[in-house]
């Protein structure tokens, strides 16, 4: 009797478990929360949680709400998580993503699109035309394989080299005209800085294994060396060529000669004087107020004039999410927030570059008053984005693993590592 009783209870337990399973599964495949493309009403938006962007977001929301009492916008900082992309991915799966997110990383857009989390802006009346009129040819980099826009190109942080003028002077180098344009010059300058003992590292890009770190060592230099190539084009890796080898050899020499550290620094190496140079975007201007810095474009093998140098964009875009019920209002807010006036506010409050074709002429007064940002404004028109598609992160991680093994830690031939990574990425790029 006792064993039969136990069995009965086990069956009841299993039934409860199965019921719970069905309930959970139902949560994952429930009814559609997709909104109406023309519906108007209140919406929620998320923006980045850094001080400058919060200030921009708050004033933008206030300006919209004052003029649109029937379509109120609720602005929130993006919830904390290991990364914004994970928070957004979870919100998509849960069906509670906000209408607009002003911190959508291009590397994650392909996955969000595959998840059914994003609205195709090309399908909105005048959507593609608005994007292309504002951003020009740069916008093409943000299309998916079918030429559709699942993201609104918003702002970029063109990556350049910052250098500490005081440390350069201390090392006997000309702080106003530093020799940093060719690989040979960059290496020689780096060697002088380290040999003279002014800083333990000439430069210290994060040597860690996260997929996005190559966007701040290899990618800017590869964009510059190739005059604007992405690392994957037409589902095929491009970097296993002489340009890629040259960039990788340059960095491998920096690590081998201990001009760049293999170890992560817990703090800001440039601000703390642990590195005489940094590879950063315009956000750094407000961060390094206490450093007497100068900036130059990233180097190329034989040197390129600043006006012809390309770099990585480090862009963040705007996504309109399919969970949004009032998509008509969301699209109107999206246009309002990327208007000439709001882009000007963005530039003024954050120093980040709106992805506009007419950036330097439209905001000429700003660049005259803030000459530190002028180089970034010019550079913004020559930026390269990560490759689009649902497998971007996997491709970038594959590249990073090969880079880490060969270039940073010197455990494999650099050219072979790039060749092998390219072969793997060719396969990954073709996956749906």
């Amino acid at each position: 009797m006792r064993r039969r009783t136990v069995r009965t209870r086990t069956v009841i337990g299993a039934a409860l478990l199965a019921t719970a399973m069905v309930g959970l599964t139902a949560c994952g495949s429930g009814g559609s929360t997709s909104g109406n493309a023309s519906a108007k009403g209140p919406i929620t938006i998320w923006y980045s949680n850094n001080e400058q962007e919060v200030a921009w977001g708050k004033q933008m929301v206030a300006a919209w709400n004052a003029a649109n009492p029937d379509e109120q916008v609720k602005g929130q900082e993006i919830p904390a998580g290991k990364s914004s992309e994970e928070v957004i991915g979870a919100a998509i799966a849960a069906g509670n993503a906000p209408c607009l997110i002003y911190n959508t990383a291009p590397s994650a857009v392909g996955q969000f699109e595959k998840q059914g989390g994003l609205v195709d802006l090309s399908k909105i009346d005048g959507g593609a035309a608005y994007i292309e009129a504002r951003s020009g040819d740069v916008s093409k980099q943000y299309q998916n394989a079918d030429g559709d826009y699942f993201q609104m190109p918003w702002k970029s942080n063109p990556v350049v080299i910052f250098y500490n003028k005081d440390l350069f002077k201390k090392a006997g180098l000309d702080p106003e005209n530093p020799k940093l344009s060719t690989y040979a010059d960059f290496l020689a300058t780096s060697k002088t800085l380290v040999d003279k003992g002014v800083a333990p590292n000439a430069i210290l890009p994060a040597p860690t294994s996260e997929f996005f770190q190559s966007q701040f060592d290899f990618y800017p230099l590869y964009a510059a060396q190739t005059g604007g190539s992405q690392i994957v084009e037409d589902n095929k890796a491009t970097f296993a060529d002489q340009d890629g080898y040259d960039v990788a050899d340059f960095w491998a020499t920096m690590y081998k000669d201990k001009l760049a550290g293999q170890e992560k620094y817990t703090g800001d190496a440039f601000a703390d004087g642990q590195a005489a140079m940094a590879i950063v975007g315009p956000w750094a201007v407000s961060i390094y107020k206490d450093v007497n810095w100068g900036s130059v474009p990233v180097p190329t093998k034989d040197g390129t004039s600043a006006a012809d140098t390309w770099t990585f964009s480090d862009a963040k875009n705007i996504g309109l999410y399919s969970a949004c019920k009032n998509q008509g209002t969301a699209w109107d807010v999206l246009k309002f927030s990327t208007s000439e006036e709001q882009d000007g506010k963005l530039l003024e409050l954050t120093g980040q570059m709106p992805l506009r074709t007419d950036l330097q002429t439209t905001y000429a007064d700003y660049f005259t008053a803030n000459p530190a940002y002028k180089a970034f404004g010019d550079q913004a028109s020559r930026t390269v984005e990560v490759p689009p598609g649902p497998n971007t992160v996997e491709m970038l991680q594959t590249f990073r693993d090969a880079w880490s093994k060969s270039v940073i830690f010197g455990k494999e031939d650099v050219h072979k590592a790039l060749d092998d990574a390219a072969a793997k990425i060719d396969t990954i790029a073709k996956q749906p």
Partner: protein
Amino acid sequence: MTDVIAAPEANVPPAGSPPRASGTGSGPSKRRKRRLLGKNPLGLLFSAPYLVFVIAVFAVPLVYSVYIAFHDYFFSAPGAVVDRPFVGLDNFVTALTDPAVIRSFGNVGIFLLINVPLTVVLSIGLATALNRVVHFRTFLRVSYYVPYVTASVAVVGVWLFLFNGSGLVNQILGPLAPDPSWLVNSTWAMPTIAIFVTWKQLGFYILLYLAALQAVPKELYESASTDGAGAMRSFFSVTVPGVRPATVLVLLVSTVTGANLFTEPYLLTGGGGPDGASASPVLIMYQRGLQQGQPDVAAAIGIILVVLVLIIALLQNRFAGERD
């Protein structure tokens, strides 16, 4: 399956007896209730919240992850029309043919080989010592427990300063310091993490042993002493056998938590570096499942990990557990 015929119980009426009236609370309906709810139905009520918690937070996700592992699965928005075909063992093949996954299992094997024995030896030794300490007993117990309750993120920051190239450890070691330094050295990264985790978790295991030591009869020590046993002999002949159940628990818990290693390679070695030398299976699951949008492959890795941990746990129970 053979049903066992129940032995007559005191409260079961003999065959042929007339059924009691239902108003008295006995009879078939009561027997049915008892069969379903047991002798103490109130116990079910009290245990229900935890049962629901276990089902919702552990059992359901575990079963669902098995489903995910056998399908071409990715997370999608509610209402999105997606095809998730059954793919058999494809995700397991993908996982087991990925060198990074294989390496991560090797890495966590190295971790467990260092962490688990070190945890058992240090925690039983320190607990025994702490049990005998007269002065500063509370202070010392709290001191060992502090790292356990401190957030990993904060403690990792301290260890980064201690073990970086110009950190305190290398300054003490001087020319003996490894090059590259500990956390970027493919030989030393995982052992360093294992030592970090051992140190951080030690307070918890010391507490388990301290509790177990209170149950070892003092008379056994007195008898051993009478028989001429010294401190070491008493330790190995009285203390170690006396706390065997706690040792099995420490082995199991440290193995399970060790196999789930994530925070340390994520933060201490910057995403499993150098060159994947400290990547753990859970870190790879995080990369594949959450960053790269392949929860199906991540689930397959998870299932493999669960099976391996179960095998290790069974072996530990077999060889370290009570044999009676």
